[in-house]
């Protein structure tokens, strides 16, 4: 009996909108604008525009103007808007899609808008297979502790994760290939536990043994039977 961990790195960046979502967002903004009242800032803009047009007229009498606005340097609302825009341009946010190559499967900074699953390459019998990290269960420990041990035993990875609950989220049973079948153990059962990646040092993991993979890309890595069971409990946005 084995315990395995399904470690998920949740998305860091929001997803891009689909075309219908874009359209609908535009429509909502427009409708909200139409149904709203004028704000203080907008009123100020209108007043400034009216004052400017009054100044341009020929029969402009500055005494008719109010006390506060006579012969003084006024900061118009438009000037304020311009200064705010300037300040915004000074700030450089980080890029949404990182420079890291999308094909580089070992980096956990890959697709920031999707949730990624950790896969490990393991020797099973004579083959090397991509699997979720798993380890054999030992007497005296609960399966969750087995899963935690599976995570901790990964070489070179300083990954901190929060496990979601004591119960397994899925299981998979398989028969050993005939050459390994011993008496009494025909096959193995693997119980999967879900965990969320909380923090990690951005150390690149070995390329050939670790992979951070999206749900759609799982089919390129996992065997079909294994994949069928694993897909059931992985929820991707």
């Amino acid at each position, binding site marked *: *009996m084995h315990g395995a961990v399904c470690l998920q790195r*949740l*998305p*860091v*960046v*929001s*997803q891009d909108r689909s075309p*219908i979502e874009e*359209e*609908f967002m535009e*429509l909502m903004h427009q*409708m909200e604008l*139409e149904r*709203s*009242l*004028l704000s203080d800032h907008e*009123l100020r803009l209108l007043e400034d525009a009216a004052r400017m047009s009054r100044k341009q007229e020929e029969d402009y009498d500055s005494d008719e103007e109010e006390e506060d606005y006579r012969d003084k340097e006024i900061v118009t609302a438009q000037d304020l808007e311009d200064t705010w825009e300037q300040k915004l341009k000074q700030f450089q*946010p*980080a*890029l*949404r899609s*990182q420079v890291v190559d999308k094909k580089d499967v070992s980096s956990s900074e890959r697709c*920031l*808008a999707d949730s990624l699953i950790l896969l490990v390459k393991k020797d099973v019998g004579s083959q090397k297979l991509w699997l979720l990290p798993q380890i054999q269960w030992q007497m005296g420990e*609960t*399966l*969750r502790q087995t899963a935690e041990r599976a995570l901790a035993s990964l070489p070179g990875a300083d990954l901190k994760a*929060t*496990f*979601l*609950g*004591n*119960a*397994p*989220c*899925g*299981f998979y*049973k398989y028969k050993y290939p005939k050459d390994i079948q011993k008496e009494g153990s025909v096959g193995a*059962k693997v*119980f*999967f536990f879900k965990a*969320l990646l*909380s923090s990690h040092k951005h150390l690149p993991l070995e390329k050939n043994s670790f992979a951070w993979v999206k749900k759609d890309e799982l089919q390129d890595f996992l065997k079909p039977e294994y994949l069928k*069971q694993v897909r*059931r*409990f992985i*929820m991707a946005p």
Partner: protein
Amino acid sequence: MAGIVCHTVSRILSSQASCSSSVVAVRHSHWFTSVLSLKTSMPLRAEPKKKKKVDPRREIMMKERLKKKLKRLERVPPELIPIEDFITPAKCFDETRIRDAPKLSFEESERRALLLKEWSRYKYAQHQTEMDTINEALEAQRQALDELKLESEELYKAAVSPDTDIFPFQHEGPSYTPPITNYEAPEGKYNDITRVYTQ
């Protein structure tokens, strides 16, 4: 000769200034017999005070009156704290703030209606897929627990027992841009004008 003595004596006295200013002139007041005797101030040598019996009664009456007033105040039910979200601010009723409603063309209103219907269909499909994935995951978990029960009761019980360490659970959700590494946010001053009500 006597005059000079008295002058010096008065000077000595004034130089030994004590708080009671009545010590200055020795000869002028009859209360002070001699300079060299003990200096006692007025109240010490007066008669002992007669404790009026009315005083403690008066004090007790004052205290009772205060207590009654306090009780009356406490009986009043406490004022309800106003919920600021439910009170529309006076700014909203200002007529100068109403926008001119734009006139929509026929095509525009048609487009809007069609888009809303499209959106409701899209959202319905999205909801269905979400519910399907959730049910699938629940089913997978139920089957896993059944298998675990077949394996061993102990492990099953350990798996089904509630986990106390998860909560409180904190996770920062996705933002529009990823966080910049080693970013120092500029410090800003702000005036907190939230109204705090006490009952």
